């Protein structure tokens, strides 16, 4: 048996730690890097515990400043003032930028942040830069995330006195597999082996553990199945999950997610307070960045206060003699952001529908994340679920990271004498995966919300007589038109035996294995043939390197429909 690339035993021995302490194998820690805040948690032998930084904070800011040439992040860095973060030298909100191309509306919305996000609108990665000594110095979201992970890793290694190499990192539901490769790259840059876990599924695992412990406590055996609706909204993303929980098993029945969050609430409110906000800041001078920062801090502060009071006085001096004085009411705030709240409601409806769960089936509604205190969000979920109260059992800011730490402990094979780790999270695909066929349609092969690991196949056929080649273009998403989904990759099947159109059978199989690796297999033959015409193709996805949506356009431009496929009609 091949040795793993790394071993923990030798490392912990060489550190010369107290030999009387048992040598524990590495237990993966849980990390939640949100758009705005982050945290790290670990299994301490009996429960999950969050680590604190030197300033005694469990919840830290997610940003990296590039001041004085050495980058430093929000874990160890201490800002002398909140406005320092908004001087142009700090990059934040990278979770909204990672793995996105410059035609993406989310990237465009990030252009109002107080650092440089430049787009050329051709479908390549955006240019991101921090202002260092009055120079725009380029960086990438992956690099920023990696710097941040290194800081978290160092902090944890210092406190836990052991090397950290394995982590469970939470991610938004709406991330495509291409985005996941970018997150994985950032983790590799930081020297971390990672398992990625959608945020609401981590919350669902924590919920499963709490229910299990309660059942044991009340001596009810494993208890009956409980259906929970989990709503997680932070600064960058809104995620919804429906889980069926029983006996410590959290089975994800449906997922829904969208890149909407507190950042959108903030930007809408800024635009409302200062309607010409974009033209004021379009040139990105040092003064403009400072003023943009001032407005941002004041608006953020006002939104926080509106969670607990019905109106708030905003008083901010934007320099150049311009001053903003306004009273903002909660009604105004809700009106300005009605579209965001409407989208939240739609996500909940969609998720309940996909899970085939009725309102009456819901045992609990769990609302977590940085936006969970917003009265409109709470009332929306109570209305929707016809519940008088939301689930109170967990800290809304710590739930996701705690669930990730539980997953880390469970997957590391740790046994707990009290059964606190007799848990399992059964995941489902957040997006459908399929190919382009039937003209320009997206034909899912592994549907959305399929339990993983999974394997599914579909049969297609040719569109032209004697067509010898076919192009397999793999997409992930939910849109009916192929190009509106995330492109994962493409390859060509050659040597289809000559036959009238519609006769050859081209089988496409998709396989997601236990490490969430996606492989696409393709083979062609004539009906009744005992042997395939050509060797099978087996392709690991994604193959695209930079999410270039225009690769698909280029293929279409070059080949037209000459290598198309259609679904094989079922013989009745």
């Amino acid at each position, binding site marked *: 048996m091949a040795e793993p690339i790394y071993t923990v035993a030798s490392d912990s021995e060489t550190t010369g730690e107290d030999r009387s302490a048992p040598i524990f194998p590495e237990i993966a820690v849980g990390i939640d890097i949100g758009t705005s805040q982050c945290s790290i948690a670990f299994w301490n032998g009996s429960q999950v515990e969050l680590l604190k930084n030197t300033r005694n904070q469990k919840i830290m800011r997610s940003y990296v400043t590039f001041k004085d040439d050495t980058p430093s992040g929000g874990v160890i860095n201490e800002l002398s003032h909140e406005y320092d973060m908004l001087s142009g030298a700090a990059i934040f909100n990278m979770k909204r930028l990672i793995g996105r191309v410059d035609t993406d509306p989310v990237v465009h919305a990030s252009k109002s942040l107080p650092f440089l996000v430049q787009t050329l609108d051709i479908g390549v990665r955006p240019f991101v830069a921090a202002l260092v000594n009055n120079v725009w110095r380029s960086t990438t979201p992956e690099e920023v995330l990696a710097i941040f992970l290194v800081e978290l890793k160092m902090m944890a290694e210092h406190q836990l006195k052991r090397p950290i190499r394995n982590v469970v990192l939470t991610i938004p539901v709406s991330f495509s597999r291409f985005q996941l490769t970018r997150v994985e790259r950032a983790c590799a840059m930081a020297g971390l082996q990672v398992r990625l876990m959608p945020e609401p599924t981590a919350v669902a695992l924590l919920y499963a553990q709490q229910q299990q412990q309660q059942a044991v406590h009340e001596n009810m055996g494993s208890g009956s199945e409980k259906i929970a609706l989990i709503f997680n909204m932070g600064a960058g993303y809104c995620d919804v999950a429906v889980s069926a929980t029983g006996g410590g098993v959290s089975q994800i029945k449906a997922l829904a997610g969208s890149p909407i969050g507190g950042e959108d609430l903030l930007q809408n409110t800024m635009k409302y307070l200062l309607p010409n906000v974009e033209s004021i800041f379009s040139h990105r001078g040092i003064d403009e960045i400072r003023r943009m920062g001032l407005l941002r801090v004041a608006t953020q502060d006002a939104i926080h206060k509106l969670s607990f009071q019905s109106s708030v006085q905003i008083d901010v001096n934007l320099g150049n003699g311009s001053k903003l004085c306004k009273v903002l009411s909660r009604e105004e705030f809700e009106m300005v952001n009605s579209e965001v709240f409407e989208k939240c409601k739609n996500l909940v409806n969609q998720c309940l529908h996909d899970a085939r769960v009725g309102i009456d089936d819901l045992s609990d509604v769990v609302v977590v994340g940085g936006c969970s205190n917003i009265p409109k969000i709470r009332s929306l979920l109570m209305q929707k679920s016809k519940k008088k109260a939301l689930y109170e059992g967990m800290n809304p800011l710590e739930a996701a990271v705690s669930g990730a730490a539980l997953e880390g402990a469970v*997957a590391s094979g740790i046994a707990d004498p009290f059964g606190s780790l007799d848990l399992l999270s059964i995941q489902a695909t957040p997006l459908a995966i399929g190919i382009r066929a039937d003209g320009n349609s997206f034909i899912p092969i592994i549907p959305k919300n399929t339990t993983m690991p999974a394997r599914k196949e579909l049969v297609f056929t040719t569109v032209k007589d004697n067509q010898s080649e076919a192009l397999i273009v793999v997409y992930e998403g939910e849109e009916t038109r192929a190009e509106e989904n995330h492109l994962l990759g493409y390859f060509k099947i050659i040597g289809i035996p000559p036959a009238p159109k519609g006769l050859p059978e081209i089988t496409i199989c998709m*396989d997601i294995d236990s490490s969430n690796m996606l*492989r696409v297999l393709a083979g062609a033959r004539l009906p009744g043939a005992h042997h395939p015409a050509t060797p099978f193709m087996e392709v690991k996805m994604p193959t695209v390197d930079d999410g270039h949506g225009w690769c698909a356009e280029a293929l279409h431009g070059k080949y037209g429909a000459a290598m198309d496929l259609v679904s094989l009609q079922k013989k009745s």
Partner: protein
Amino acid sequence: MRGYGLALSGTDSRCFVPAMPPIFSPRRASPSVGNSQVLFPKSTRNPSLCVRAKAAVVNEALVSDAVEISFYDLLGIPESGSMAEIKQAYKQMALKYHPDVSPPDRIEEYTRKFIKVQEAYETLSDPRMRALYDRDMLGGLHLAFSARRRGNNEEMEVKSGWKSLWQDQLSGLRRRSMNKDSGASMSWGARMRRQRDELNDDEDEV
């Protein structure tokens, strides 16, 4: 007998359709498992068996790789099993066979089983599909159920070499992906647990 080696290489039960019902399998673990081979199990099954005990028996049959059993036997529940029993049995099986919790050296095998358990659960937990399945089972057709559900009329093609080549390719793929033990393709959780196991072994040796 035809193609038993292929019997568990995918979710697609079309490839499980034997030329004739497997009345006898030499690798059968115990007589009680043998009962599950009978196509009209109502008469032979004892519904009073508790779910857990039943599951334990069937588990052996599952790992012995060569037995084809009904969805009810797969989950270890009687045909009269309630929805609550189905859900509970599914979760118990998941705790055993899900690749996140299975032994590191048996991930490939257990993953295949988990996919089968998942298919059984999805069928039996949907009243409409369960009714269809029950009807087919009474007609002695339960093994062809997957094929019917997918709307394909391909039972006959199962015997063709194509299908077995395809299935060979798929299981070969799985093996290759699992055998690269130390590589990035090994399941994250499996790597973690293997690491732990090896550590424990080391400690034992000391």
